[in-house]
């Protein structure tokens, strides 16, 4: 559990192209502590720290809470990362539906993918994600 969460956190940091030192400044969390979490040497941090990290990594706070074991994704009813990715893939492959985005970065975040899927559901009246 500890090492899975650590790997996930490291992936998020690398995707955001940030160093531990930069995260320390932005999220006000010691880089030594972050390094230990990423290496699976420490338990996932407190939800309040996760909230600050979520803001820095531009990822939904709920995702970090779920990965850290604070939430059971199924019980909360929120779609999982896998469900969102799968639904997004369906949207991309629907020839009757086109979408475009203007992003701050190079690739859409999970939050953006979910937004696009929800717009698809609204416009096509098809349900891809389970309702919360």
């Amino acid at each position, binding site marked *: 559990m500890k090492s899975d969460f650590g790997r996930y956190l490291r992936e998020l940091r690398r995707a955001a192209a940030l160093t531990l030192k930069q995260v320390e400044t*932005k*999220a*006000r969390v010691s880089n030594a502590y972050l390094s230990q979490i990423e290496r699976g040497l420490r338990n996932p941090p407190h939800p309040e720290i996760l909230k*600050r990290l979520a*803001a*820095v990594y*531009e990822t939904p706070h709920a995702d970090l809470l779920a990965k850290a074991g604070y939430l059971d994704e199924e019980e909360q009813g929120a779609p999982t990362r896998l469900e969102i990715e799968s639904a997004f893939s369906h949207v991309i492959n629907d020839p*009757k*539906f*086109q*979408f*475009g*985005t*203007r*992003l*701050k*970065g190079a690739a*859409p*975040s999970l*939050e*953006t993918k*979910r*937004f*696009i899927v929800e*717009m*698809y559901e609204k*416009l*096509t009246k098809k349900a891809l994600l389970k309702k919360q």
Partner: protein
Amino acid sequence: MPDTAQSSALPAFCAAVVNRHSSAWPPAENQLAQEFLAHFGIARLGFYDGLVRWCGEVGVDVSTMELPRDLRGANFWHETNMSIVMPVNGGCFISREHTLLHELRELLEWEFEHLGHSLGHVDTRESRSEQFAACVRMAMVVESSKDLFKMASDVRDPFGRVCAYGLVGAVTAVLVLGCAGVRQLEIHFDAQHRKRPT
């Protein structure tokens, strides 16, 4: 829901462009921007609020929502429905017109594809849309500066007239450069925003 006459405005424009450029397809982005402005009339477009109104007139629904943090705007094309979603309050003031035009340009792309005339590879779509938006905005700025130059020419005092010309020229130049460098301005703006404590 837009009526048929409204919603056919963009497809009609795309069909006209295909007819004119079929021998040398695709047209360059600045050409497409010029055709767009000539077809719809630059004076009708105006700036952000005018553009939003104009979108409604041609059957493009523009709505505002709380968008994910990495998203400046989005567009959706489904059957005959075209919609653009902008951030609440139009987003960053530097680039809201640019973003709206970028999204509009992508809606045109779907129409061209629908007509069997793709404007280019999907990998270059973003940069082409950026170029289109910048070209349209620069033309808008230059067009609106004409009225200001006319006002400057009406100044009776020769020294005052020169100053007025200089001022209008400088403002126009800054705005045109701003149109071309929106991406850089946004990056700078975002970096400043991130520096603030969360």
